[in-house]
């Protein structure tokens, strides 16, 4: 991927935008355990970030995938994980299936306002008894004429207390396993949709996470995204977009964390010299930098594959797996090398440490990534 003047200007635009619209508020939002999604998304949307690769007919930018990579890297530099995660839900988790498979009417009603930052979207897949094993979901949609009647519950819904609509995966037939599921757009203003709990988390404090319940929720069958019964397969496509943006964010977050750690160690004196004068610290950081470099170039190779229209499953899986692990290692190293201050809640290392833990669990746990790879590479007996 060749970085052009347009990529550089888009990167600078996003960096300036985040610096002005997000950074001054991060501490307040972290303390509040939420952020004003409607207000912030409306401020971010005019640069096009919520519709980069989407159809211009619905307000999308019609950009190629390389700009999603740039956006992800810059989102990774935001000084908390919660806000970029909430943005990524709107960009790459709740909307890709709608953009790819939705009808024109559905896209006009739900995708276009999401791109304009006029509404907040969430993805509702995980349930109390079905996380990594998506096929185990129990939320059901029973057809009644031209309506679905939905009953069930969803867990760990990012933006869940503020969302205007959900991209919800439900069983819509009695077929077992991966069959018989559908993706349905559910407006949260519909009777029977309730935020049962706002969930407290280890990290990602600025992002609200909810448990939602659905009791006799009636939505039109025309709110079904794509083909009825193909929800699981469409969600797998959507998961890929989620893994890619997660991976790209990691490239940016690791780069910044290493730079900030280096700057601190160069300044901090111990035993009459800067901490950075210690060869052990130098070597550890050099090795992490080397691995980050590999990750960064793998991200570019991945973006190229997506732009060529290739199946990027392997790239997304490896990138997300290795990025999550390296990010955790860098976070752990940053805390360690900063010493006492690194453990303090007021310091960036502390927030980075707790926020980065999620990436090895969300968007498909490390073990799910390994399961996919084991199958692809023939290591699996399944």
């Amino acid at each position, binding site marked *: 991927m060749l970085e052009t003047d347009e990529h550089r*200007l*888009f990167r600078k635009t996003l960096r300036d935008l985040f610096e002005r619209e997000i950074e001054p508020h991060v501490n307040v939002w972290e303390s509040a355990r939420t952020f004003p999604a409607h207000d912030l998304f409306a401020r971010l949307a005019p640069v096009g*970030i919520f519709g980069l690769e989407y159809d211009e007919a619905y307000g999308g930018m019609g950009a190629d995938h390389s700009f999603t990579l740039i956006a992800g890297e810059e989102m990774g530099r935001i000084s908390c994980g919660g806000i970029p995660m909430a943005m990524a839900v709107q960009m790459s988790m709740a909307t890709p299936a709608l953009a790819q498979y939705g009808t024109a009417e559905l896209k006009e009603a739900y995708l276009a306002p999401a791109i304009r930052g006029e509404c907040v979207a969430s993805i509702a897949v995980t349930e109390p008894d079905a996380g990594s094993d998506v096929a185990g979901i129990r939320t059901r949609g029973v057809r009644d004429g031209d309506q679905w009647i939905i009953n069930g519950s969803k867990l760990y819904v990012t933006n869940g207390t503020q969302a205007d609509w959900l991209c919800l995966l439900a069983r819509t037939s009695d077929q077992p396993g991966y069959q018989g599921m559908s993706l349905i757009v559910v407006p949260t203003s519909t009777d029977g949709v309730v935020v049962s709990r706002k969930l407290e988390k280890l990290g990602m404090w600025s992002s609200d996470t909810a448990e939602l319940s659905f009791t006799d929720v009636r939505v039109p069958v025309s709110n079904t995204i794509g083909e009825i019964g193909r929800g699981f397969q469409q969600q797998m496509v959507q998961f890929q977009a989620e893994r890619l943006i997660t991976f790209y964010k990691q490239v940016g977050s690791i780069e910044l964390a290493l730079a900030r750690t280096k700057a601190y160690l160069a300044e901090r004196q111990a035993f009459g010299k800067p901490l950075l004068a210690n060869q052990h610290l130098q070597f550890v950081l050099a090795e992490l930098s080397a691995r980050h470099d590999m990750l960064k170039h793998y991200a570019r190779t991945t973006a190229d594959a997506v732009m060529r229209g290739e199946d990027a499953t392997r790239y997304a899986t490896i990138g997300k797996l290795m990025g999550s692990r390296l990010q955790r290692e860098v976070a752990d190293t940053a805390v360690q090398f900063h010493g006492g201050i690194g453990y303090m809640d007021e310091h960036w290392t502390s927030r980075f440490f707790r926020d980065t833990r999620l990436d090895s669990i969300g968007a498909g746990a490390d073990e799910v990534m390994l399961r996919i790879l084991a199958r692809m590479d023939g290591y699996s007996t399944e």
Partner: protein
Amino acid sequence: MNVVVCVKQIPDPVAPGALDPGTNTLNRSGKLIMDDSDNYGVEMALQLAGGEGDEVTLVSMAPGGETSGLRTGLAMGAAKAILISDEALAGSDALGTAKVLAAAIARANPDLIVMATESTDGYTGTLPVQVAELMGLPSVTFAKAISIEGSTIKVERQTEAGFDEVVCPMPAVVTVTAGVVEPRYPSFKGIMAAKSKPVENLTVADLGLDASQVGSAGSGQEITDVSESEARGSGEIVVDEGDGAQRVVAFLEQLKVI
């Protein structure tokens, strides 16, 4: 209305270039960005020239045919740009630069010329009034608000005590202070559209100027020496002994901030 904004393309302050040891001037080779202080001028111009048939033209002088910074202004919404790039311009002082910009601006025949009060790499703050003088135009500096009334502009000119209201016939040169407007961010669509917006590339000869009057040859200024700036001293710590608020107020009054 036709508004010209003079835009300076500078090395990125995040990774500033070094001084050229031969000339003691800033090394400006490589990618440049639009000076942040010009964001305000471009935004002001776009707001003033928002009507049908109105147009904003950017004018910039930079080495090596560099347009990266200009593309930012074009992505914000300016219609076109004029770039003056010529090896003969290396080493130009403020007056030499003003001669070049004045000649280029005249080609655009503007109703209004907007500039930043000063650049963030040179800080001379002398260029705008030099351009106005060379073009025989009135200039109003430190504008914090501008409105158009027929063929005149009404400017609120920032002063230490508040602001003066200045009415001035157009065409005129106006400098705007930082924060005067909230600059828009270039959108993705704006960035891509900027690729195909016209940039007229000119040389010293194209402007009908004598090369001996510009660049190091025409410079009346010589940089004889440079030295490291003094390290920033430690700040003054005020211990609140019941009079903390008064001491802070006194400090701010001394700075003429309040």
